[in-house]
């Protein structure tokens, strides 16, 4: 919990100075009441789950062979998917933030679609694209590559659902950063690729980092698309969320214990994403 509370206090002091600037402090009391209800709504279920944990069996449950295999697979596939998100998402964010062309708003809407799409729908769509009978699947299979029921399928499903998180974070960062420095670099004779490499990317690095971390977290929690598209086999496609879903059938204690592991990893990851960018942004602001 410490990494989360530390930046919050920092943000609090920042807000205080802002308030002194404008002299306005009006948050109506009923907003606080609803905010408290919102906080409880998120925290209570987590607390209820923690209360259900069988602590005596906790360590044996989370260190069983199938649990460790699932956790390892989840971490590996999420890392690979995050790399894929960066490779595909950075150019997308740049095009959306900097370029201007007809159909740009439509492109943004489509790129963001996986954010609001039920993951199962994403899984079905991927099945009809990369599946054995899918649009591209047949030619891919002829080339000797098997995607069906492979770890590659898991990575594709995770990338599909996590890509918008990176694009949104980075596009926002690019727009906030503005084009001033890029324009100056260009007038000094820097070529577009040099401007991108030496000015744009370093400027939005905090945004890129938080986008990557959020994508990673989304990949870690991916369930529906994976189940629909990749299947479920220990060590190959059964990631931690799928393992939890299966354990729940027979061993509720194991499912709760593994859920807690996933919550812990998610809290750590999100905590990281909230600290790093602020710290980096502060550095960028003073430097």
């Amino acid at each position, binding site marked *: 919990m410490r990494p989360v509370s530390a930046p919050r206090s920092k943000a609090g002091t920042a807000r205080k100075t802002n308030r002194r600037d404008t002299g306005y402090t009006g948050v109506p009391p009923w907003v606080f009441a609803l905010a408290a209800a919102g906080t409880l709504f998120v925290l209570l279920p987590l607390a209820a789950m923690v209360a259900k944990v069988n602590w005596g069996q906790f360590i044996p449950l989370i260190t069983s062979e199938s649990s460790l295999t699932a956790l390892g697979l989840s971490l590996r596939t999420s890392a690979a998917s995050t790399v894929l998100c960066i490779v595909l998402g950075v150019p997308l964010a740049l095009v959306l933030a900097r370029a201007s062309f007809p159909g740009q708003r439509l492109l943004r809407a489509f790129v963001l679609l996986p954010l609001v799409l039920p993951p199962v729908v994403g899984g079905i769509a991927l099945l009809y694209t990369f599946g*054995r009978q899918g649009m591209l699947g047949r030619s891919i299979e002829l080339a000797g590559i098997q995607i069906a029921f492979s770890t590659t399928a898991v990575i594709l499903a995770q990338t599909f659902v996590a890509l918008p998180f990176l694009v949104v974070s980075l596009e926002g960062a690019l727009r906030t950063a503005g084009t001033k420095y890029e324009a100056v670099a260009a007038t000094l004779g820097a070529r577009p690729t040099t401007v991108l490499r030496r000015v744009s990317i370093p400027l939005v690095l905090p945004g890129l980092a938080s986008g990557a971390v959020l994508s990673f977290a989304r990949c870690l929690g991916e369930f529906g698309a994976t189940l629909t598209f990749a*299947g*479920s086999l220990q060590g190959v496609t059964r990631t931690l969320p*799928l393992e939890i879903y*299966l354990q729940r*059938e027979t061993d509720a204690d194991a499912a709760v214990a593994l859920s807690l592991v996933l919550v812990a990893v998610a809290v750590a990851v999100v905590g990281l994403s909230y600290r790093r960018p602020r710290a980096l942004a502060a550095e960028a602001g003073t430097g």
Partner: protein
Amino acid sequence: MSTIRVRIGALLAAGVLAAGLAGCAASNTAAGRTQSGSSTAAGTGTLTVFAAASLKPTFTKIASEFEAANPGTKVTLNFAGSSDLATQITQGAPADVFASADTRNMAKLSDAKLIDGTASNFATNVLEIAVPPGNPASVSSFADLAKPGVKVVVCAPQVPCGAATETVEQAAGTTLKPVSEESSVTDVLGKVTSGEADAGLVYVTDVKNAGDKVQGIPFSESGKAVNTYPIATAGSSRNKELARAFIATVTGSEGRKVLSEAGFGTP
């Protein structure tokens, strides 16, 4: 100012809606209670039936027949995996009738004293090989599933259909190397209908229900793992008389006809 007023208005509306819903729920249960109290014969009122997902087509049909035969009754059906339903009932979900796809989940409720009387077995189901139309991997027997290159999808051993698969494997002396172990029979069927898998092990009734999207291949070893479906009145039911009447319809000749048309066997 106006936006604040709108927001407060929305809040009030939400509050009124919530209160209204609560009122609805209360009046429903109250109506159910008085109706069951004053009823004769089979009785009238609402009946909530929790049934295993594999019973969806048959129980939907039986329920509408039951409603037609008993004017004034309304059957609400809730379909999910048997273990999910058992968990829901354990947590206090308002069920009148519970129909499970296995005896294990029924025993769980019966041990917890959440069942009224004893459960009666009303149907059986056996496994069958499902292959995509055209049978691309030319599967014709259970042993063919173990051939190299045949992509087989089964249920995980943790779920009832997976436990049945393990029993059948032992009976046949064939060890399968599945490409995926799914958590439900629907997921197995989905992998076969989409052509991702060359074959899957599902229930006879699933093959029948899927129509021409899959081809079924029966195999003799399936008889070693017969799945029995029990049905019982929930202990917390407020309308036990109507619940018993519904169970009598399921286990009686009308229910039997619908069930056997769907491929279920007689216990």
